[in-house]
């Protein structure tokens, strides 16, 4: 598939990430404004969500719409343990974040096993339905979840001066870890398995790829990160309700972010989250009811119709075409990778 990101490995691998990391680390110190940092943390949360979704869905081509389930498991794990054990707020609660990730990953094993028996559209819909089932359970198993009353987490007790910093840096660390894992998977043999599943699952299986194990393990890794992020979200927001943590729109939003940036690329989900989450926050603050959805929907339609391969791939294509034209002394022929041809008509008949 499109490996154009690898054309310039040294630049991509060392230069940009380092600059971006420094920028991300210094951001809250440069802008110590509560409103800005609030948006920054939410953006990091969504960037991490889209990245962890991409580890499974982007590489295997299975468009899961149910990652909210693991987000919810993580959030409820965090809330229930901290409230039932009467843990004090503070830095200690961040230690529960990986625990929440493990719980989400353990739940993902049976759920993934069941849903991965289907593929294509049925898989998309099964995963979406799972969100509704668990939302309903969270509403109705009042003995455990308190239902629609919601759960309030212990107050962190951070000083107002640096209230946002702990959340920001822990969430940034999770994002960097997710990106590292994503990058490692992409460049490993295991990642090639996953990409082979995406391109042609039956042929991959015929060539000896253990597709079942590959898909399930990627699903579980993805759920692990999603659970951790859910826990972070619960602690940051301070209260959870079934309709907000098992929210089907959340799944769709993070998929949109990944698509916007470029599914299956390393940086795409982060770019998509940066644009979409900031736009969303801006519109929800500044636009009246209704206009918010119109702006968002229109933004979406425009980007999808103009850059259907995602921003990262499309911009990279434009950039390399421009560079080659310049390098070749104004030669009009840009020997870039040709656009993938329309699938030959006959292919519809295969299999």
């Amino acid at each position, binding site marked *: 598939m499109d490996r154009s990101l690898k054309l310039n490995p040294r630049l991509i691998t060392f230069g940009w990430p380092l600059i971006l990391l420094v920028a991300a680390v210094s951001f809250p110190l440069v802008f110590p404004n509560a409103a800005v940092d609030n948006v920054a943390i939410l953006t990091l949360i969504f960037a991490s969500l889209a990245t962890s979704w991409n580890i499974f869905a982007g590489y295997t081509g299975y468009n899961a719409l149910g990652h909210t389930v693991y987000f919810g498991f993580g959030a409820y794990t965090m809330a229930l343990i901290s409230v039932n054990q009467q843990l004090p707020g503070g830095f200690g609660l961040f230690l529960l974040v990986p625990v929440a990730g493990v719980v989400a990953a353990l739940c993902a094993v049976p759920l993934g096993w069941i849903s991965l028996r289907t593929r294509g559209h*049925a898989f998309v819909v099964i995963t979406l339905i799972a969100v509704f089932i668990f939302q309903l359970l969270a509403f109705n198993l009042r003995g455990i979840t308190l239902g629609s009353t919601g759960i309030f987490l212990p107050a962190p007790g951070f000083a107002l001066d640096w209230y946002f910093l702990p959340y920001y840096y822990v969430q940034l660390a999770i994002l960097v870890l997710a990106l590292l894992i994503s990058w490692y998977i992409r460049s490993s043999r295991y990642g090639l398995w996953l990409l082979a599943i995406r391109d042609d699952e039956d042929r991959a299986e015929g060539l000896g790829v253990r597709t079942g194990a590959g898909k399930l393990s990627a699903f579980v890794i993805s759920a692990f990160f999603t659970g951790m992020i859910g826990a972070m979200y619960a602690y940051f927001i301070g209260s959870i309700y079934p309709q907000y943590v098992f929210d089907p729109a959340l799944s769709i939003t993070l998929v949109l972010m990944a698509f916007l940036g470029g599914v299956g690329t390393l940086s795409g989900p982060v770019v998509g989250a940066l644009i979409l989450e900031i736009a969303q926050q801006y519109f929800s603050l500044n636009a009246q009811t209704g206009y*918010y959805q119109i702006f*968002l*929907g229109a933004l979406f*339609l425009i980007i999808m119709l103009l850059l*259907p391969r995602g921003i990262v791939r499309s911009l990279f294509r434009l950039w390399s075409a421009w560079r080659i034209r310049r390098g070749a002394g104004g030669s009009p022929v840009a020997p870039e990778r040709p656009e993938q041809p329309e*699938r030959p008509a006959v*292919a519809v*008949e295969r299999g």
Partner: protein
Amino acid sequence: MPFEFDPVTVLDAVLAGILTGTVYALMGMGLSLIFGVLDIIDVAQAGYVILAAYLSFFLQRSLHIDLFLGLLITIPLLFLLGIVVEVVFIRPIKRDRTQLSILITFGIGLVIEGVLGVFFGTTERELDAWYVTQGIKVGNFYIAYVYIFAFIMAVALIAVLFVLLYRTKFGRSVRALMQNRTAAQLIGINVERVSAITFAIGAALTAAGGMAYGATTPFNNNSWYDLITRLFAIIILGGLGSVQGALIGAIIMLVLSDVTAVVWSPVWSSAVFFAALVLLLLFRPQGLFGSLATRKQ
């Protein structure tokens, strides 16, 4: 949990399920038809339903047009909307149709939600007329006339759709496209035209479905999230791309939900259906009437 088996109540629930099931079938059949012919998943379908419900609301409140008479206006309007959406947004998608269509139609749904929010706000609305408030007693239930009228309308429209699909030249083109797009093109079917009209028919069906939905359920501009999940569940149960499947899937879903509601508890009604759907998919991933997608194309 208290389980109550009162045969009359259960029969009533079955009846109610069949009556509302046909209305959902109208919307689901459009969705399945669109999927079968255009190979896209139209998330905005539920948005058209809500749009149609609001149009009926507007016609009734401002112009005092009866809900059923208003369909003579809303059906052509949604047909036109369908043509426009297909030509402007769906036709340009050349690669990855199925995946990109989900996102693009989601964008369309958002725009519809936003426009409705601007014009009507987010207050919950309900359509009303004499047949919404009056009804007849069947068994232990009181069934409003609108359920019966909507059922008759839905059956009539479904019959028209089947005649269109199985007794006309256009219907033959549609079925040919569903079977094999390329071969249909080769034998001289105007694929683009048939696609646009099919999409528009799918949207037009929601005009009737939306009116019936609005007369039986309170709605506001974001009701489409809940509705689209139900519609997806219906067409997955019936088998994607199968029009009969959507009809039967809708009736099964509504009967199962309504029976669960009276036998067990209303809060579990959709959970039972969803659980049953997941179980079915484990053994029959293609749904009841679908054909197995063996290979991702």
